[in-house]
């Protein structure tokens, strides 16, 4: 599947300073995954076409390249401007197979395929799994979730809005496959929350 960047808007809205912007976003993503549940504020360093948000555009411009296969959810893959923008700014090839994806980008978190359908990695190479980047409405204002696990002292409470239905059941299944399994970055306009596969999520605060 080739997304041809025919719209000239596809060429605009990348990092202004690719090296420094990429380094700063990388640092933020790394922190978010090292400190699960901690809200990491983000400057919108990119201006991708809607409905892709700037936070996700910046992560894409930082982590995606010609060696990473990208799966887009139906909302995004139908959108030529989004596909064209990602292609020009990252050179990443698109895939329709969730199992092949190094990264998956979801604009509509509520319609998420099962986590099991993405690449889980292998026992020898658990890193060969999909990282999901899920756009949600907001990082706060939803029901309280209590996180525990490596990288968290005692516990951490988050309350994201717009999580997929049955997310907790899905996540429990994901944890049971450890060391295999997917990692998730929840993204909203104000920043991101990292949910590496090691984190345990329960209802409550």
């Amino acid at each position, binding site marked *: 599947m080739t997304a041809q960047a025919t719209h*000239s808007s596809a*060429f*605009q809205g*990348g990092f202004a300073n*690719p090296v420094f912007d990429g380094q700063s976003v990388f640092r933020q993503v790394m922190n978010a995954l090292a400190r699960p549940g901690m809200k990491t504020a983000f400057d919108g360093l990119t201006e991708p076409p809607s409905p892709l948000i700037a936070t996700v555009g910046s992560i894409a411009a930082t982590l995606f390249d010609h060696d990473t296969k990208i799966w887009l959810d139906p909302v995004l893959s139908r959108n030529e401007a989004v596909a064209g923008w990602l292609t*020009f700014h990252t050179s990443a090839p698109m895939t329709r197979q969730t199992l092949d994806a190094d990264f998956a980008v979801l604009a509509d978190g509520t319609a998420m395929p099962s986590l099991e359908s993405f690449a889980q990695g292998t026992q020898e190479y658990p890193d060969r799994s999909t990282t999901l980047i899920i756009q949600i409405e907001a990082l706060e204002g939803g029901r309280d979730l209590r996180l525990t696990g490596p990288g968290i002292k005692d516990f951490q409470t988050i309350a994201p809005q717009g999580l997929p239905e049955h997310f907790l059941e899905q996540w429990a299944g994901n944890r049971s496959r450890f060391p295999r399994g997917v990692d998730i970055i929840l993204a909203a306009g104000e920043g991101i929350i990292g949910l590496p596969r090691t984190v345990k999520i329960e209802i409550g605060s």
Partner: protein
Amino acid sequence: MAEATQQLHEQAPANPEQAARQRAMAVLARASGSELAKAWDAWPDRPDVSPVRGPETGLVMVRGRIGGGGAPFNFGEATVTRATVKLSTGHVGHAYALGADKDKVRHAAIFDALWQDDATRSAVEDQLVAPICKRLDSEDTRRRDETAATRVDFFTMVRGED
């Protein structure tokens, strides 16, 4: 497999305009930096150019085929420089060329944008692509002819009485 290779090359381009642009881009990629710089300096009514990406130098992994025509393999990288520019006319031009000559590739991207503009395409073709193409062709011919002079002409020595 030889057939498959041939098919690959014979694959008809989607349209003649694309084929012409591919050809022009190939010539721009092999042009010298000074050829493009001179042409741009002398260009009348130069539009404003804003950089969209690059020029930036990176790598491309060059592939060969096992046995010449079999399965692909990676055999080594080459430096490549790319640039994307936008002209005040609204046209966006791209260029990729081997090597690390950033000015050359930025100019090539400008000319790719000018090539896409109906108002300037023929000027790019006539004043730039055609003469550079002619130079490259004559260099190729010269090299072929110099190699041909080292071709072995076998002759049979007749021995014995009959």
